[in-house]
């Protein structure tokens, strides 16, 4: 097993920095898409869906951490062949690394879709993709520690802004909009829990980051803390969106959280009204972090999959492929939305949960582990 190990010294991050990663990658897309998608199925019970999704997310991240702990010095792309044998392991490794690129180009499309539909309708979408991906390339050249510090700063501002927006609309939230509870039974609530459940599962990106974490004994704790922070943030936007405009309208908006920020009305302090510009600013930064993290994980995985020593030469060609895939994948924003509500959550649950738990069980049965006792 001599070849398994960190490819080269990419620096170390702490468990808390990994937590910042886990929170910021989910937050960037989830706060925007979860209210509309969840409210569409679960209506006024969307907040219950988020609770269920939170438990499912905890299960997924715990599965991922349990698997990662068996192989402290390697990433999932490296140890999948140890668990399943050479060829099946390489196939599973490829599924993981494709998944990282898949989320990456999905993020690129989401980003350009929002910028085109809400802010700059006359700019071609490819311009937004190019700008965001060049920034991600730049960050990926910097390496893991650079991306980490950048995330910490961005996340602080993101969370502060979210709390500000929610505090400003809290007086306009009407409790009766959440009634009657459980109108159509549990089915729609479970259906509404699938997309946020999938997003919570993205915290399993830890499978790639684990070898670089310094204080590994804290990872279980910080992962659950990440889920908790995400849960609170998602509840805030779901309750905010549904309580402010009602479930039907929340489901009709493309981006309810944005409209929420636009609906801020404050006679005493008009300067705080219409915070959507501020919101866009932090959201762009959040999207950049998300894209960078998944892109970095993908390129690193690709380098490990191909057994090359340095991932850096692969950065630019991978980004070119990712952009080509992003342009090819969806023709318009309606297709992208149908995809993000129906197809995307199931595919990421498949990778983050089904494959991960399959690897964990196989490793458990075959007693495969590189951990020193």
């Amino acid at each position, binding site marked *: 097993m001599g070849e398994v190990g960190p490819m080269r010294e990419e620096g170390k991050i702490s468990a808390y920095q990994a937590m910042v990663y886990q929170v910021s990658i989910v937050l960037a897309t989830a706060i925007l898409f979860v209210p509309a998608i969840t409210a569409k199925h679960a209506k006024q019970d969307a907040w219950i869906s988020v609770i269920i999704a939170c438990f499912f997310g905890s299960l997924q991240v715990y599965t991922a951490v349990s698997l990662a702990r068996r192989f402290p010095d390697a990433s999932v792309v490296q140890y999948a062949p140890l668990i399943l044998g050479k060829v099946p392991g390489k196939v599973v490794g490829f599924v993981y690394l494709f998944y990282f690129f*898949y989320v990456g180009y999905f993020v690129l499309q989401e980003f350009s879709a929002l910028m085109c539909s809400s802010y700059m309708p006359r700019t071609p979408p490819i311009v937004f993709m190019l700008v965001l991906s060049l920034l991600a390339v730049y960050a990926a050249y910097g390496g893991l520690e650079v991306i980490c510090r950048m995330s910490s700063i961005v996340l602080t501002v993101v969370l502060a802004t979210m709390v500000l927006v929610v505090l400003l609309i809290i007086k306009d939230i009407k409790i009766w909009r959440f009634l009657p509870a459980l109108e*159509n*039974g549990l*089915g*729609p609530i*479970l*259906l509404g829990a*699938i997309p946020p459940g999938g997003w919570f599962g993205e915290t399993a990106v830890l499978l790639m980051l684990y070898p670089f974490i310094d204080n590994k004994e804290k990872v279980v704790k910080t992962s659950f803390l990440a889920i908790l922070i995400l849960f609170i943030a998602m509840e805030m936007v779901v309750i905010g969106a549904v309580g402010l405009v009602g479930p039907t309208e929340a489901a009709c908006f493309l981006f309810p959280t944005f409209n929420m920020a636009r609906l801020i009305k404050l006679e005493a302090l008009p300067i705080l009204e219409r915070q959507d510009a501020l919101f866009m600013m932090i959201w762009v930064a959040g999207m950049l972090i998300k894209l960078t993290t998944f892109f970095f994980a993908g390129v690193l995985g690709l*380098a490990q999959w*191909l*057994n*090359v*020593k*340095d991932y850096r*030469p*692969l950065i*630019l*060609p*991978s980004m*070119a*492929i990712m*952009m*080509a*895939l992003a*342009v*090819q*994948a*969806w023709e318009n924003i309606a297709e992208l939305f149908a*995809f993000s509500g*129906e*197809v995307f959550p*199931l*595919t990421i649950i498949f990778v983050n949960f089904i494959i991960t738990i399959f690897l964990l069980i196989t490793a458990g049965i075959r007693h495969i582990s590189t951990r020193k006792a």
Partner: protein
Amino acid sequence: MLLNVLLILTGFAVIIAIELPRLLRQKLYRETIAFFVLIAIGITLSLGQALQLPIPNVTKGIEAITRPLFKAIEKILSP
């Protein structure tokens, strides 16, 4: 269309100009092969779209497998 093709080829030429000298100087042959395979995939995908050739769409493939599954789940869970 011609402009698109030209822009795409320029983009890839820039990428090669940035990375190739360093790869050859450091004698990273395995990396160089991987680099060119990725470039080839990238050129195929992007030129294929620019020239509107029938190239496989991975995302549509994923969608074709997953959407029926979602519809089935939706049917079970709907009231």
